[in-house]
């Protein structure tokens, strides 16, 4: 068996283990072991991948394996990874690992929580290892549905409304996607669901023009494409901590990755012709998300809108269709995934202590819980793009890449998107100043404790990853660059 399948097998085995677990301790042991195993697998994969490349293996996808599943529709269970999916798998493994520790003490129904959490991870990992459209789509949907119960049961605030809205909007997106996939399958004339084979086939241009928007919007809904982003603030705000982390950190990346891997890779002509429409929409996402974050008072809403802005930037960069910007897009996915997970983890920890997320009721937390305070500052700085942290590398590449286009349209929109950096600084510094410094807002807060060991584990791992990307981005960016070539060549035709 191909070792990539372990990424799916481990969460499934975890579910089996959880099912048998009787006590809370057993549940925690299973979850922590499984998550650590996944993280180890992902790190191992990075080394194996780099090793293969260094040894001169130039295949588009490495570690490929396939076995026939549904012969009548040429559906294979086929897996394979390139630099981009390796990066995404690493991201997912980190977020799952830290997510488990962030939800160490759920309080009730732990078993069910972790069961759904594992199902969600199965979907996420499966999506990134698949190179078959059908299995990719299947994993995509597997990742969507646990969200409903995770938010509905363990969430807070208007959880039922948020869960339903999120599920229905994402399912509507996947409905478009399904039609797009069937269209690609039947109209490419290739009788294959394999991404690589489809990329070599020629889908007629007039077909591409209607398939591209279907697929792009279908994935774009998950990537918070304006005006289909409205599920995101409500969903993230209501979700429990680990789910917010996984959702904003990884699931939204499924959207970006899908747009890139399916929409742009398979339909390059339409991508070139229709990019402008989506550049306008994503431009709006970027700026609108940032402005909305300024006026929010709920910490989670602030971060949710900031995610809309940052994920908008991912799609924006992908649509620039050149190597620098796309590389930036992938880095941005990683960087945003990590820092947003850190944000949500910290917010969860703060909320768990103060029982409020309203920034007007918080203040001076740096004195009370210095560790969490410092972590929050680091996350904030990464988010506003401080050099040395991951955000800077990504945004730099994106804006340089998009400014490479010499025409007015692209340049104007690059400038517009650039303003988001300033706005980001405004809302991040506002929050940091308000909740961390100044006088303690509530007497009761003085008695609160700082982070405990599992919370520290989760935040430190994330901060290490963020700083790691910020300080040594080159190996990552090289790994991604090598895999971007086939896509760029396809786009340039």
């Amino acid at each position, binding site marked *: 068996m191909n070792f990539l399948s372990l990424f799916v097998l481990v969460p499934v085995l975890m579910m089996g283990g959880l099912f048998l677990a009787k006590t809370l301790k057993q549940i925690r042991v299973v979850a922590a072991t499984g998550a650590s195993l996944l993280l180890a697998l992902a790190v191992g994969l990075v080394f194996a991948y780099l090793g293969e490349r260094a040894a001169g293996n130039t295949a588009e996808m490495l570690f490929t394996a396939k076995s026939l*599943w*549904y*012969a*009548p*529709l040429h*559906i294979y269970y086929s897996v394979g990874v390139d630099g981009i999916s390796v990066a995404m798998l690493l991201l997912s493994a980190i977020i799952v690992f830290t997510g488990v520790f962030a939800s160490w003490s759920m309080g009730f129904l732990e078993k069910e929580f972790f069961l759904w959490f594992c199902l969600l991870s199965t979907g996420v990992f499966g999506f990134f290892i698949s190179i078959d459209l*059908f299995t990719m789509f*299947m*994993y995509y*949907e*597997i990742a969507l*549905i646990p969200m*409903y*119960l995770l938010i*509905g*049961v363990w969430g807070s605030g208007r*959880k*039922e409304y948020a869960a*339903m809205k999120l*599920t*229905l909007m994402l*399912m*509507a997106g996947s*409905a*478009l996607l*399904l*039609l797009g996939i*069937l*269209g690609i*399958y*039947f109209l490419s004339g290739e009788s294959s669901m394999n991404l690589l084979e489809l990329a070599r086939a020629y889908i007629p241009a007039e077909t591409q023009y209607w398939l591209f928007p279907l697929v792009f919007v279908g994935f774009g809904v998950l990537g918070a494409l304006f005006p289909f982003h409205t599920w995101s603030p409500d969903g993230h705000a209501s979700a429990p901590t680990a789910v917010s982390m996984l959702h904003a950190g990884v699931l939204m990346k499924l959207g970006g990755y899908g747009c890139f891997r399916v929409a742009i890779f398979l339909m390059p002509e339409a991508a070139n012709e229709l990019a402008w429409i989506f550049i306008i929409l994503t431009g709006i996402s970027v700026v609108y998300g940032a402005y909305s974050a300024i006026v929010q008072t709920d910490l989670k809403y602030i971060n949710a809108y900031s995610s809309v802005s940052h994920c908008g930037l991912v799609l924006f960069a992908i649509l620039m269709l050149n190597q620098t910007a796309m590389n930036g897009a992938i880095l941005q996915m990683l960087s945003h995934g990590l820092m947003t997970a850190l944000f949500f983890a910290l917010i969860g920890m703060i909320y768990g202590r103060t029982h409020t997320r309203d920034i007007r009721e918080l203040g001076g937390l740096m004195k009370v819980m210095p560790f969490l305070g410092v972590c929050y500052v680091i996350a904030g700085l990464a988010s506003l793009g401080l050099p040395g942290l991951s955000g800077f590398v990504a945004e730099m590449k994106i804006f340089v890449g998009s400014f490479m286009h010499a025409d007015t349209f692209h340049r104007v929109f690059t400038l517009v998107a650039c303003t988001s950096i300033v706005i980001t600084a405004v809302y991040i510094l506002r929050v940091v100043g308000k909740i961390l410094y100044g006088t303690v807002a509530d007497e009761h807060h003085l008695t609160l404790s700082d982070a405990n060991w599992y919370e520290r584990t989760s935040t430190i791992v994330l901060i290490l990853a963020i700083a790691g990307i910020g300080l040594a981005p080159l190996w990552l960016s090289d790994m991604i660059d090598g895999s971007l070539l086939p896509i760029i060549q396809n786009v340039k035709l």
Partner: protein
Amino acid sequence: MDYSNFIYLKEELSLIAVIVILLLYDIFGSKKSLNYFQPVACLLVGVHLLLTCCPARAALAIFGDTPVADQVNAGVYPLLSGMYNLYPLGSIVKSILAIGTLIVFLQARNWLEGERTIIRRGEFYLITLFTLLGMYFMIAAGNFLLFYLGLELASIPMATLVAFDKFRDRSAEAGAKYILTAIFASGLSLYGISLIYGTTGTLYFTDIPAALTGSALQVMAFVFFFTGLAFKLSLVPFHQWTPDVYEGAPTSVTAYLSVISKGAAAFVLMVILGKVFGPLVEQWQAILFWVIIATITVANLFALRQQNMKRFFAYSSISQAGYIMLGVISGSTLGMASLVYYVLVYMFSNLAAFGVISIIEHRSGKETIDDYNGLYSTNPRLSVVMMIALFSLAGIPPFAGFFSKFFVFAAAVEEGYYWLVFIALLNTVISLYYYLRVVKSMFINKNESAIAGFRSDGYTRLGLVACSAGILLLGLLSVVYGEIHHYSLGW
């Protein structure tokens, strides 16, 4: 007369044997021995199922007739001078229906052991098997006469089943409604068939296509014929009877009605549309196009507001029939395979859901969605079974419903029905909303007075486990679909 042909009628003959044995048992069995009626009935149906499942080729090889076996595998083999058709896919569908019936039997115990029904429990099994026999004839028919015979045999006893709880007003009312609509529908079909006979001069499926010219009268004949089956399938606008009958009938009967009867009708419709009305393909595709859109959309919109679980599932099953029709309209090999597979998956999902409804209704007498609030806290296993059934119906992976929906969509897209599939897909989102409503009430809503926890009896549990296993495995194991596809014929 050459009696050797009867060997090939193994499905029908073994079912008749089962019926005769059960009938004698019911009449002559002592009161004490009748307590074992359910296990005996299940066992006999199981034996019959083994015979049916046994692939045609293997069965024929046992009797040493390999040339016929090859012919059967290659396509349709007419028997009894063309009256009866032997074809592998037909046997597959028959065994699917038999599996469904077996599960219904397993789940019926709770209800049948009630004080008012216990003296008549034998009738339930017998009448159900009679309707099953009628469906077998419909599937195997090579002539409109046999088809009509099967249709009547499947419809009229069904009305007595619907009215089985005659001491309950609702059940009696539902029985009356069912028999009136069923007879009306059969009448329309019969009128259509007579017009076909009038214009073509034959009732044999194989001879009719050559004589079909597409004249107005023939189109009218088709419309009448189609209307009759559409009643059975409860396609919009012929669906009005469904919610009332589903709500009034005993839950086990509702389950049988919503799955077995519907599945058989859908398959037969596809076979006849392809085999007999092939020359009128443009006309019936145009009709089906709008019928499908109306069925899926109207049923979904009505399902949104239902409170009673059985009415809710009535509308849900109407919309599911619309999805099944996507396989019919494509008319391809893929479409036929997808249809059969869809029916199989739908059967497991719906029977699981009805199994839960039935047992909860029996234990607590409650049947509205609000009564299910907080069910997970008291009956976690039943809630989980219900949830996977609902997810499967909504088409969520990794449950089998996802695969079956994908295949019918693929079949329709293959023939270029992009808009139709688009509308159907949007409707899956609506349907997800109402399926999630039930999930929400079971898992999320809090309830102080949730239905008390209980342990269900072994038979019911066996039935639910079988359904759950079907829902979980049918999609992931591609062999079932592969087998169905292998024997499917495009027309």
